[in-house]
């Protein structure tokens, strides 16, 4: 482990005032589907449809993220290998990013899902916009309730 940010980026436990704030790594789906570079797109598409996912993360044997298939890529082709169809080197986010900030960006940028990775690029999970927005909203409501309760006590 190289330093504090790498500790956080690996999604390891933290202490202190902000430790209980939900973060990207807490909300990302760990069961996100993955595929390999040499799989045919038609096969992966069928697997995604059966599992009810509209995105798939392309990884290597070490689970390092190589690419991403969103809905538009999943619609392309049949026998072509994933390597030819995928979105290579997608933007990834670290597990310690506060969920409110990611949710805000995902909504404003109309981004349906984003891979969350450790700082060495290994997949932690896939963050879905609806999950991020739901948890961020719950967090905001909880903060408001705490604030109101504190005001009532005064």
């Amino acid at each position, binding site marked *: 482990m190289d330093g504090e*940010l790498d500790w956080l*980026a690996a999604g390891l436990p933290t202490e202190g005032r902000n430790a209980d704030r939900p973060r990207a790594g807490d909300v990302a789906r760990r069961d996100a589907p993955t595929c390999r570079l040499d799989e045919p797109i038609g096969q992966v598409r069928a697997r995604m449809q059966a599992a009810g996912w509209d995105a798939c993360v392309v990884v290597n044997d070490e689970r390092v993220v190589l690419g991403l298939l969103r809905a538009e890529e999943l619609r392309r082709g049949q026998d072509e290998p994933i390597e030819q169809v995928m*979105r290579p080197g*997608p*933007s990834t*986010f*670290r597990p310690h*990013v*506060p969920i409110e*900030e*990611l949710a805000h*960006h995902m909504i*404003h*940028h*109309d*981004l349906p899902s984003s891979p969350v990775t450790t700082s060495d690029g290994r997949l932690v999970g896939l963050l879905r916009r609806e999950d991020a927005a739901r948890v961020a909203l719950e967090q905001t409501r909880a903060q408001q309730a705490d604030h109101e309760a504190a005001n009532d006590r005064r």
Partner: protein
Amino acid sequence: MTAGEAALEPPTCIQCGVVVECCAFCERVVCAEAICYRCLRIQFRESLPGLHVHGG
């Protein structure tokens, strides 16, 4: 990037105004809230890769 997108003016970061190839968050060339990689990392409180220090 599509051929249509490539013909457009490159976006500028809404935070610092630097011209970027595409938005660092959504990777789209057409983005009303395009942000550069540096500003995005600062917003997410992530460390920026530092410059290598070489002797001589």
